[in-house]
């Protein structure tokens, strides 16, 4: 197995072999990111292709300073954002005001055990805009100001979409937990229903 440095060097020279190696090493990782930003697997794989094309042809942009995985991640996120902008017009959009759900109480998920697959699935159920903001803020760790710039939205929109996304996720996770039935529904009072 070649090191990152050797692979990068090979890619700079457009070596087909180095490109294959890069793909082998990082495609799974990058697809994991793409899946979070797309509505289904097919879309995620389309984004993944775009990510690799960008990586192969813009490998010179990687200065070698930071971590290579970090750079790849950034390219993936940016590609996903580009894709979001491109497909936004095809998607059904919910107005923010349509969603009145607010965070109710503090349901804690302490002892719960969600697989990453479940988390991604829950995430994918969010409206596209909410998903973008939540991904960028909570998972990627961008600031609301940066997100606003990236998505061409208002800072406050980013903030409100983030908080609504949180509320929705909370609901969905509680629901998921009840569905699984493997946990005592401690915070539910069935008699009230």
């Amino acid at each position, binding site marked *: 197995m070649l090191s990152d440095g050797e692979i990068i060097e090979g890619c700079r020279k*457009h070596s087909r072999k180095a490109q294959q190696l890069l793909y082998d090493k990082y495609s799974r990782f990058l697809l994991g990111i793409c899946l979070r930003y797309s509505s289904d697997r097919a879309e*995620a794989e389309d984004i993944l292709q775009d990510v690799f094309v960008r990586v192969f042809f813009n490998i010179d942009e990687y200065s070698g300073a930071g971590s290579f995985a970090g750079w790849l991640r950034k390219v993936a996120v940016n590609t996903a954002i580009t894709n979001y902008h491109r497909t936004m017009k095809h998607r059904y959009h919910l107005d923010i005001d349509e969603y009145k759900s607010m965070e109710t109480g503090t349901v*804690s998920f302490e002892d719960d055990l*969600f697989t990453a697959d479940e*988390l991604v699935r829950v995430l994918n159920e969010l409206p596209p805009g909410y998903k973008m903001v939540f991904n960028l803020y909570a998972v990627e760790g961008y600031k609301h100001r940066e997100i606003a710039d990236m998505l061409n939205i208002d800072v406050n929109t980013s903030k409100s979409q983030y908080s609504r996304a949180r509320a929705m996720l909370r609901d969905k996770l509680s629901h998921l937990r009840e569905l699984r039935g493997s946990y005592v529904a401690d915070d539910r009072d069935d008699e009230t229903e």
Partner: protein
Amino acid sequence: MAAKGKYSDIDELFRSGLEGFEAEPSPLVRRSLMRRVETREFLRFNPGRINIWYVAVAAATAGAILILSSGGTGKGDDAISGRAPSDTVSITEIPSTGIPAKIEEPADLQTRAGSTDRQTTVQPGTREESMSLPVRQNEVVKSKLTSSDTLSRAKSDTAGGNLQQVADIQGENLTVSSFTISALSGCAPLKVSLSSTSTNAESIQWVSSDGRKSQEQTIEWEFTTPGSYTIGLTATGKGASSDNRSATIIVHPLPKARFEVTPANREVTDRDIILFNYSENFLTASWSFGDGGNSTLNDPVHNYKASGAYRISLKVTNEHGCSDTVSKIYSTSRGVHRIEFPNAFIPNKNGPTGGYYSLRSDEAASVFHPEYEGVTEYYLAVYSRTGALLFESRSLNIGWDGYYKGQLCEPGVYIWRARGRFVTGEQFQKSGDVTLLKF
């Protein structure tokens, strides 16, 4: 791979839960990615990567250009010389006349040859379809209908359908379904008379969308529930030839008339009665009071001039013109008359009220006034015990409020005198005393 541990925060849950989340791309991705990369690499023309492909492609391109340039001139010559030949005429002619012409023309001929009698039933100039046979039997249906037609055709007028009919005409066995209908819309319950005018039919079958069936020539169906119904007629002739037509009828809902009268059947004479319309699903109301009086107001007020039993009827109509009528007998008798005065009252302590009162609402008895019926003329005067005139009224609407020149009178006994005339023309004159109380 699972997220485990304590997460009070949902962000944290997702961040750590998705940490290192990976997924295996399908093999297809790699293949199509590599194809894309190669295409792009190729187009970028990297001088460091010249290989046999470039040479081959360059050679092929050059060859193609050569062939195209020589072939192109050759074709050009053809085009110039090829304008004159008459072969091209048939090609250019098709778009000008169009496909309908191709279908219509033979059909036209066939029809004329096969069945001339049908043409007589077609009214010239009523044709709407451009691409149909000249003899369409549904026009027979149309011309016979007098009401505004919402006749729908179950059969689509496609070219294929036309051709099928052409075949039938050739055999002179064209079975055509048609019928007359007495009404296409109306108020519930709607009774429609249907009569088949189908030609060359050996058997007919009526169906309605609410499940009725019949094979009679003439039928009468009644639709009680409001809604839209489709009536279809299938005519089957010799062989397998059959045709069907359908019509949609609309049964409009009815309004529901209901009203009440206030005061209810009391023997009143001179007072107005109020009629309250409690009808449902209606647009306009029409009242008849039974004494020749009418009104179109929703809640009219009426006054009967003579005693008797009157039939009050209310007719309500909805937006479809459907109506419902309800009537009630209302009896009233003139000539009942009385006038009675109380012997005590309690004025309002807070100031003069002006003495207005209503027989229905003055329960607190803060105004001194009579209870009466059938009074036409009226005069009331109130005196102090010393004989001073404190109050007088000629209106049945105004009594004494217990004040004199803005000052509340002392509690005690006061004298009143009243006179007037009843509706019967009889005069009355009454007097008495009343005690003004104070709480």
